[in-house]
């Protein structure tokens, strides 16, 4: 990935995460004492499921882009850098995929 594309993707994901981040905290605060059934009912609404999926994908993506910069700045050695960046990208992709699957399961089952 070119540095310019990395820069743009970091800013674009950041921009969309501003409203999504506020929505996420507001939702979690409102659900602070909710049980599993109530949260499932909430999460199975199409708008909520879509927003949660978007928050997770963009959050994981923005996170992977940011962790990459930190690794490039503080980890010595090109090989170790490449390895750690690949590892972080793998973790973030896996986590996002698993969470998307979980949202899909809840949205289908209700």
């Amino acid at each position, binding site marked *: 990935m070119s540095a310019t594309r990395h820069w743009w993707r970091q*800013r674009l994901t*950041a*921009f969309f*995460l*501003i409203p999504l*981040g*506020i929505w*996420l*905290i*507001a939702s*979690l*605060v*409102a659900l*602070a*004492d909710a*049980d*599993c*059934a109530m*949260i*499932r009912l909430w*999460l199975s609404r199409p708008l909520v499921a879509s927003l*949660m999926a978007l928050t*997770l994908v963009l*959050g*994981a993506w923005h*996170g*992977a882009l*940011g*962790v990459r910069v*930190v690794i490039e700045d503080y980890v010595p050695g090109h090989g170790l850098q490449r390895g750690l960046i690949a590892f972080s990208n793998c*973790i*973030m992709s896996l*986590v*996002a995929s*698993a*969470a998307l*699957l*979980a*949202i899909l*399961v*809840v949205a289908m089952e209700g």
Partner: protein
Amino acid sequence: MCAMTAIERPLSPHLTVYRLPLAAWMSITHRMTGLALAVGVVALAAWLIAIALGPGPFAVVQDWAGSWLGILCLAGWVFSLFYHLCNGIRHLLWDAGFGLNLSAIRASNRVVLVAGLGLTALALLLAFIVVWSGP
């Protein structure tokens, strides 16, 4: 040329004796909260997976979230999100060319700190009210 590399030149800035300005501390905090939020994405995913798996796994996550360590982590993530969000908006404005002079940066330092801490306090207060008022 060899002699040149042998000379021990002073390094600048002297990070061990140099008092970092507030903007520098805030830049470091932006990265630290960013890393905390990357871990937070993993925690959010774990929460969603537990919800999909059912009441049993959900109770495990809920028990942890109600423990002192859980509350500390949740409070830390709420602060990290609001701080990173507020300072991130400032970064986007800087990227667009706004607020790049010293007096504007000193003013926006305060705005980001007050907004970040204020929103954190508000969210945590509301969460405690929701929990304590009960169903």
